[in-house]
């Protein structure tokens, strides 16, 4: 037996190993959060050579929750963005995963290529789609529409425009208007979906590969149709992974900022953009912090839901 150097007990060692990470997180996450809470109870504004603080109590919070014209519309818009994106991502992701799970030539290549959009940086993605959507005759999407004769040659659609879809449909139009949905928002959803679907696809694909083939064989012997197999075997068994994707993506979608800010600046006010406007453009650090906190709370709610699901779905 070789000489064992004196080492601390396991508990001691664990504390030593965890200490740097815990210290870093306390310094860069916990402390700033507490500080944000402190700021949110003040009116905090920058002046040349410092920041002035003035106690306001909960006024920043009540302002947003009860008196602000933009806060609730921003929440509604963000929820709409989140839900619609999620539905499209899930449908596309599951569909693509089902296809990629089949046997075909060059399958490994295709699976690798599918990952490409996910790797493209968010900023590049935003500027790329902005260019594709260019509302003049040199825009690629307009060009495609002209080439396929889906648009008359003289007409160029303004893809990032502010028309409310289904405006003329009685109830739906009003609902869309109330939610704040516009053409531009839908186009951004498409752009964002392009980037994120590969992630969903690959996660679902990983889930599909864990389903034992014997289940399908048994169903085949029973003569179950493809549709039946999908609905009664595949989807139920994918449930845990779909739930995980659902919650993960909800949280990421809810905090969307980059792509909307780059393409539309402040003209589509989702909560992330609105917080940034109040905090970093108007420089109301107190009010901005209050809104950050409100968003943080909403996401915390989602996070708890997620944790609960992770630990109750262990049976699969």
């Amino acid at each position, binding site marked *: 037996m070789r000489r064992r150097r004196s080492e601390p007990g396991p508990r001691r060692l664990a504390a030593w190993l965890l200490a740097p990470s815990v210290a870093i997180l306390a310094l860069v996450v916990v402390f700033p959060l507490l500080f944000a809470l402190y700021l949110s109870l003040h009116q905090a504004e920058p002046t040349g050579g410092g920041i002035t603080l003035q106690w306001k109590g909960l006024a920043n919070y009540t302002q947003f929750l009860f008196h602000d014209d933009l806060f609730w519309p921003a929440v509604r818009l963000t929820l709409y963005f989140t839900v619609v994106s999620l539905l499209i991502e899930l449908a596309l992701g599951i569909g693509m995963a089902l296809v990629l799970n089949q046997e075909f030539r060059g399958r490994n290549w295709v699976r690798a290529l599918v990952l490409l959009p996910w790797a493209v940086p*968010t900023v590049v993605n935003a500027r790329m789609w902005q260019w594709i959507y260019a509302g003049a005759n040199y825009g690629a999407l307009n060009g495609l529409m*002209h080439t396929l004769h889906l648009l008359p040659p003289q007409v160029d659609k303004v893809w990032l425009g502010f028309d409310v879809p289904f405006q003329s449909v009685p109830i739906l139009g009003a609902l869309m208007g109330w939610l704040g949905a516009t053409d531009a928002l839908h186009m951004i959803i498409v752009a964002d979906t392009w980037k994120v679907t590969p992630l969903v696809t690959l996660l679902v694909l990983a889930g599909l590969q864990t389903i034992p083939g014997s289940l399908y064989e048994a169903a085949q012997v*029973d003569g179950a149709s493809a549709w039946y197999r999908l609905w009664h075997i595949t989807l139920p068994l994918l449930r845990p992974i779909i739930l995980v994707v659902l919650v993960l993506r909800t949280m990421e979608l809810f905090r969307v900022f980059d792509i909307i800010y780059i393409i539309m600046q402040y003209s589509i006010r989702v909560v992330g953009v609105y917080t940034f406007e109040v905090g970093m453009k108007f420089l109301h650090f107190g009010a901005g912090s209050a809104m950050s906190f409100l968003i943080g709370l909403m*996401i915390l709610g989602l996070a708890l839901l997620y944790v609960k699901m992770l630990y109750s779905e262990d049976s699969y």
Partner: protein
Amino acid sequence: MALPIPARSGRFGVRGARRPPVWRKRALRVLLYVAVGLILLWTLAPFLWLFLSSIFPYKELIAPRASHWWPTQPTFANYLALFQRQEQTGELFLFALRNSTVVAGSVTLVCLFFGTLGAYALARLPVSHKNAWVLSLLVIRMLPTIALVIPFFVIVSLIDYRFLGWGLEFHLFDTKLNLVILYTTFIIGFVIWIMRGYFLAVPPDLEEAARIDGCTRMQSLWRVILPLSAPGLVATGILAFLLAWDEFLLALVFTRSTNAMTLPLFIAQLGSQYVTRYDQIATAGVLASLPPVLLAMAFQRFIVSGLTMGSTKG
């Protein structure tokens, strides 16, 4: 949400175990390849268009698209221009490229080092309130950056005031160090979470064997566990690098000059002068995408396993 549990004795089983006819099989085959083709088209077309745009001469780029899908005289002038130090845009690009590489690289190394140690402790050692620690990691990972930007901004300003008060010629604002520190907020928790998953997957017997051979805990981590979870280390490293490479909001708020400006910021600001030079934007976009895209393609398997590990159990 509740879906019916698979019914094994299906009512739909009446047709029996008949084989599907040959024509049907062929049709399905064709359908499959069409679907694969559509998937590839949807995935690749936008990025291909970005690349094509980067080799278009500007005047052709703003010609009616329906009759100008290919550049008649493709040019790589935009690519060369971005590597030209003497030109304003080229200089900025090279600075941004350097800053992005340094920042993303440093963050990855720092987080990987400390995160792995922490992950090992949480996976293998007795820690009181372990579940609470793991859960709080998860919650931290989910915090939106936007919620931290404002306090960060105020704190960084105040710290710089302190430095100035002490007469130091040093400040955090607009430095790469500052970005490295801030980026750890969302990367270190992620690293711990994923690495813990990989460590849990290593059979404990192996470590026990090493311990019996006289290894200390650290030696067994170094010689047994880490080599066994090497794919995990690679995947986590790449994912952390990509997260840092992609970051925009913090760079937007905390960088001012060539000192620390990163690629995403450079690209977001490109082409705002007089005419919107989409050929230039496309060129920079392609170049900025190359490192992550190549990494993702080369390590596809590792990355998928890392992502799965990261989003499911830890």
